């Protein structure tokens, strides 16, 4: 039982740290080509094969993250493989003349760093070329042999990129949307004090705001910037993009609540209904989160009567000129949030199952 609870807690923790499963996808992209190479090495036992075969594809898969389009991904990985292939071939050919190896290494490093392929493939390729210095078997035929291994590695990287993109992209999109919404909800709960008190004091609002900004950028990268190859993923990203727009609106709305804690006493005194309203918003955000989790339309509870009373209360306080502008800003933030939540709920009524 304890193991189950622990694994659930660990999963929740890891999902909070990596809401878009970016780390998981990245690690898989780097592991799969190396596993493929290991498979080739174990079962086919290529003669004179070395560690380069196993390590190179794994390292170079990282480079694919630097681009959001497929052509860019393939181009950057290919550039790195090309530099390694040329570099290690030269080292293999010149192995008997140490001085020439130095000149060759200098030239390969210098030229690859100033080449238009960019800095990152050059940096990885230089490191891989250096590994080839340690090989015991050298000579031009060994150089050619390793070029063949590198071609296999390049193919393994491409297969891994396509496979991970095909299998994980949709999970990533849904996961980052959930992560984004849960951070917004967490922030709302921490500034207004609604929800469980444990949550209220658990993390500083400032820290959650930073997390929101970071998740927002990641979500934008996964859903809007990434150019997917498979049609299913393209369609999913279009649908997820509409939901992401609402979440961006939520995150902007919450900016008006920054002074809630300072104005708390004033709000308690003049607009006490703000607290039941914030409770209802928390519940509605939880409902939206649940809807994103289960791809099911959110259950809508009618809070219009409560909101009307709250507005009347606010109008009264405003007419009596009892509220400073910063308290009015908070009320405005609530209004914006309510309006955006309503719109997202309406959207999910029809579209939740399509996610």
């Amino acid at each position, binding site marked *: 039982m304890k193991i189950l609870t622990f694994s659930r807690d660990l999963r929740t923790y890891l999902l909070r740290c990596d809401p878009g499963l970016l780390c998981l996808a990245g690690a898989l992209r780097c592991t799969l080509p190396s596993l493929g190479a290991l498979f080739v090495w174990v079962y086919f036992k290529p003669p004179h094969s070395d560690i380069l075969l196993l390590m190179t594809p794994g390292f170079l898969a990282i480079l694919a993250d630097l681009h959001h389009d497929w052509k860019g991904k393939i181009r950057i990985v290919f550039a790195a493989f090309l530099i390694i292939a040329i570099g290690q071939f030269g080292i293999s050919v010149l192995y008997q003349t140490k001085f020439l190896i130095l000149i060759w290494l200098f030239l390969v490093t210098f030229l690859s760093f100033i080449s238009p392929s960019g800095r990152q493939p050059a940096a990885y390729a230089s490191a891989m070329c*250096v590994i080839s*210095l340690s090989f015991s078997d050298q000579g031009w035929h060994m150089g050619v042999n390793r070029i063949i291994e590198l071609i296999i590695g390049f193919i393994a990287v491409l297969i891994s990129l396509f496979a991970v993109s095909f299998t994980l992209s949709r999970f990533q999109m849904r996961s980052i949307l959930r992560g984004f919404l849960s951070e917004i909800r967490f922030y709302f709960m921490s500034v207004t004090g609604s929800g469980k008190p444990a949550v209220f004091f658990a993390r500083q609002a400032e820290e959650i705001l930073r997390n929101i900004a970071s998740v927002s950028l990641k979500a934008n990268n996964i859903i809007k910037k990434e150019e997917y190859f498979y049609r299913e993923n393209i369609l999913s990203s279009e649908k997820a993009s509409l939901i992401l727009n609402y979440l*961006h609106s939520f995150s902007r709305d919450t900016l008006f609540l920054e002074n809630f804690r300072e104005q708390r006493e004033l709000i308690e005194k003049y607009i006490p209904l703000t607290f039941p309203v914030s409770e209802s918003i928390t519940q509605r955000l939880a409902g939206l989160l649940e809807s994103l989790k289960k791809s099911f339309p959110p259950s809508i509870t009618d809070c219009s009567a409560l909101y009307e009373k709250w507005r009347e209360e606010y109008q009264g306080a405003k007419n009596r000129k009892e509220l400073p502008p910063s308290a009015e800003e908070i009320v*405005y933030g609530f209004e914006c949030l309510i309006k955006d939540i309503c719109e997202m709920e309406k959207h999910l009524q029809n579209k939740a199952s399509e996610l």
Partner: protein
Amino acid sequence: MAADKNTRKYHEAFKIAVAITAGTFIYQFFQLPYGHWMPLAIAFIYVGGKTQGLVMKRANDRFLGNLFGLLFAGLFASLLMSWDYRWGYILPAIWFGAFYFYFLMDYWYFIRQVFLSAFAVLLVAIMNPAHENLNLWETMFDRMICVVFGGIVLLICEFTIFRESTSVKSDIIEMAGKFFYDCSEYIISVSERYLKKENIRYEFWPELASVSEKYSAGKKLYSSLENELGHDITQNVHYEKFYDQMRKICGLLRSMKCIVNHPGEYNMTEGDSMKIRKASDVLSKSFKALLEQKTQWVSVREKLLDIFRGAPYRENASFPELLFTEKMMETADCADKMHEILSSLPHA
């Protein structure tokens, strides 16, 4: 600016090529055991980033990462694999873990280094039959010596060859310039939409994201600058203030966008619209002035107050209207403060 950047690229390439070649020279001519770990350490430190501050931090992480990684490999091989060779089957999991935690810890070089150095040693021991009976503790010691030498070579090259080429100071200035330019453009587009009563559609998002991205990139550059050798730490206070203002500006711009999408009632007259237009123009120009680093500075807040002359607080204005003007005033304050901070930074 472009030519300057290009020269820096050539200088950086030359520096890295010299460092790797020097490492290889020492390895080849002194016949050090596992000597290729020396140029390897140099090359891998440069993989993570070119900036000097990062290089310093990474050299440190590389040393500690190798130490812990090799220790782990030694214990794993001598305690587990010598007892049952099937423990070697978990190597792919180590490889996966290395990358997973590396990404999870925001590209923390140390973590990756711990796992990968352990992985490399164990893999070599498994794949090369000649190494089957190698003394792991002894080879670990040899490797560590090479990593230390590699680090020393790298730091010597870093601080003697084109030192300025990897300093982030000029990058920070460039990034700040781009940030000011984006802010200037952004203010004009948001105000135009506000006046036209147009809801800002989501295609506008990249413009806003670009402002926030510049802020994040600038913050990263600053963390690199902090680690640079010879960096005057007394300047950190000004940098902190600078990034704090950047963060505030991002928040204010986002709020302005939200107000445009939730405008409430509009009671603006033609005269009020003119004032908003003038104010946004002044605000936008002030950011361009920050970009051009004009020495003569007239308070933007004063200019805006002069334009509004009490208008933001008129009786019949709706709250979103007041708030929009208020956010403009706050942005003006930030621009004034930004100018003050910039004049206190020596290389700005």
